[in-house]
């Protein structure tokens, strides 16, 4: 009976389920630098959270220590030119960095991903327009424009985030566009169309999930870039306003005193460097872990 074979199930065992994410997690765990970086970042987030409710001293309290005083038992990192506790200000400064870093990337994802998907999947005139806009934005000197924007909008954390996103969203859009361009040629995308998928489902149900790897990596590496950008702006004086401390503005405050009170510059600089390094190592580790082709 010919139909018998159709009804007869081919019984077989599959090995225990191993999802793609757990495979990536396994690979990430083996990357020592990425692990150390993650530990550091977890610590940093903890510090930031704690500092919202408690710091050794109030970060704006002037004169709790002798101005420019070096690290001591009472003030572990010393004091700044106004006699404020450096450690407390450093802790609060971590909030700024993290908010800017993560906040900008969230917005970049919301803006850049859909634009990139539309341009890469539909191509044609839409892609031409988007590419043109992206290239125009790339032509803009980002620091200058960001400075002008903050100047016009008024210096606040929100406006800084907007300015950074406005000048750096193109990296994500370009990446996603490239991913969409190559993914749209894959057979499962064609199969999705044949199965009657609507355009929205094609973009967000098929293309985007398969581009998540590079997107995550790009966002992770975008965080330190944003943090650095903000630090730079603050260093130039167009960042967050006093008394809110940003690592960049703290470094600015300490630059004149660098010869006799170097700790004022060094402390925020080291914090900044460590944080940037950590995000970069994590981003690199994620890239290796999520790349299905790298087999080690």
């Amino acid at each position: 009976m010919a139909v018998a074979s159709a009804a007869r199930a081919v019984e077989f065992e599959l090995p225990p389920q191993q999802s793609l994410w757990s495979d990536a997690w396994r690979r990430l765990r083996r990357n020592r630098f990425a692990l150390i970086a993650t530990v550091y970042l977890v610590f940093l987030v903890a510090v930031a959270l704690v500092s919202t409710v408690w710091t050794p001293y109030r970060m704006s309290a002037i004169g709790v220590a002798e101005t420019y005083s070096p690290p001591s038992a009472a003030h572990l990192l010393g004091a700044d030119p106004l006699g404020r506790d450096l450690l407390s200000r450093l802790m609060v400064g971590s909030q700024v960095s993290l908010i800017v870093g993560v906040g900008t990337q969230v917005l970049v994802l919301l803006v850049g991903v859909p634009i990139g998907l539309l341009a890469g999947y539909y191509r044609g005139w839409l892609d031409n327009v988007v590419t043109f806009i992206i290239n125009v934005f790339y032509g803009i000197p980002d620091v200058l424009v960001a400075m002008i924007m903050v100047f016009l909008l008024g210096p606040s954390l929100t406006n800084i985030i907007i300015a950074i996103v406005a000048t750096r969203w193109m990296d994500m859009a370009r990446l996603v566009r490239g991913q969409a361009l190559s993914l749209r040629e894959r057979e499962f995308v064609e199969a999705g169309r044949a199965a009657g998928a609507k355009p929205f489902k094609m973009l967000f149900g098929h293309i985007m999930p398969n581009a998540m790897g590079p997107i995550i990596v790009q966002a992770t590496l975008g965080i330190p870039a944003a943090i650095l950008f903000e630090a730079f702006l603050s260093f130039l004086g167009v960042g967050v306003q006093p008394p809110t401390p940003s690592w960049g503005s703290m470094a600015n405050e300490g630059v004149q005193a660098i010869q006799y009170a170097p700790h004022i510059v060094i402390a925020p600089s080291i914090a900044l460097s460590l944080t940037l390094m950590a995000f970069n190592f994590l981003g690199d580790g994620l890239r290796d872990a999520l790349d299905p082709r790298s087999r080690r």
Partner: protein
Amino acid sequence: MAAPILQVRNLRTQFSTQDGIVKAVDDVSFELYPGETLGIVGESGSGKSVTALSILRLVPEPGRIVSGQILFHNEDLMHMSDEDVREIRGRDIAMIFQDPQSSLNPVLRVGFQIDEAMIAHGKSKPDAHVRTIELLKRVRIPAAETRVKDFPHQLSGGMRQRAMIAMGLANAPQILIADEPTTALDVTVQAQILELLGDLNRELGTAIIMITHNMGVVAGLCTRVIVMYAGQIVEQGPVDQIFENPQHPYTWSLLKSIPRVDAVRHERLRSIEGIAPDLLRPPSGCRFHPRCPFRIEKCYTDEPTLKEVAPDDLAACWVTMDRARKEMGADEMVDIRPGAGSGVHKGRES
């Protein structure tokens, strides 16, 4: 009978992957006689390509040959220095691959690449030039004198493969190993290339080892056949014998699962149930037993070795098709399921 020019003895090649050791070639032995055409046939994962690469010690990382002998005119390639092996490669034993697109350097002219094959083994440039054109003519590339200056992308798939063959034959090797040379080509082109190989074998006396998954190719070109499954040889013998009266159930099932263009009636294909074996954890006993319609108890536990089961026909099987026909009604079976023919034959020694 002349002495074999190539003897492979107990070859074992393994790959160390992050999931474990893959035994790609597991105790393979065979011989190649001068001027003959030997076919090594098997599906993906059978180990046929790795066997070919092992002969020339070209196994890529993370693979390596762990044991065995490869005797070329009684000299063991395994014990030779890298330099000596390089001498033999391309001069005495040549190899051509499946995809001529990626085997030929796209930025170098075709003639140049064939010249290089000869210059590397001591020929002078002007001599090489002349011979290259001769070779291109011999592989039936029209307008050879102008084609010599072409780049690979200017040639069609079939012509690229002919150029590869020319490169392989440049130094008049005694053995030409062809690893799926026609799989990527159209059927009409494939037929021409196979005819060319057959003619070259007759005219030049070059022995050919033909690696393929296509039984039709083997039937047309080869005089002897080796059938591989899961890294081992399951059957070997003269081509007529293997096709007419295969003794190993895998060979038999494989032949029955191929639709034939000259079939007179529409007969349902008898498929081999199950999936390809996992080379990391191969099945116990006979590696084919999970899919074999004629298995008996012994097949689960004892690994069979190659034995002569019919004149000139070696097979690694406890049952063999002769017995399967007599006792299990092999020829009448319609749907071939694992174990379909066995059951009442427990414990019988073959």
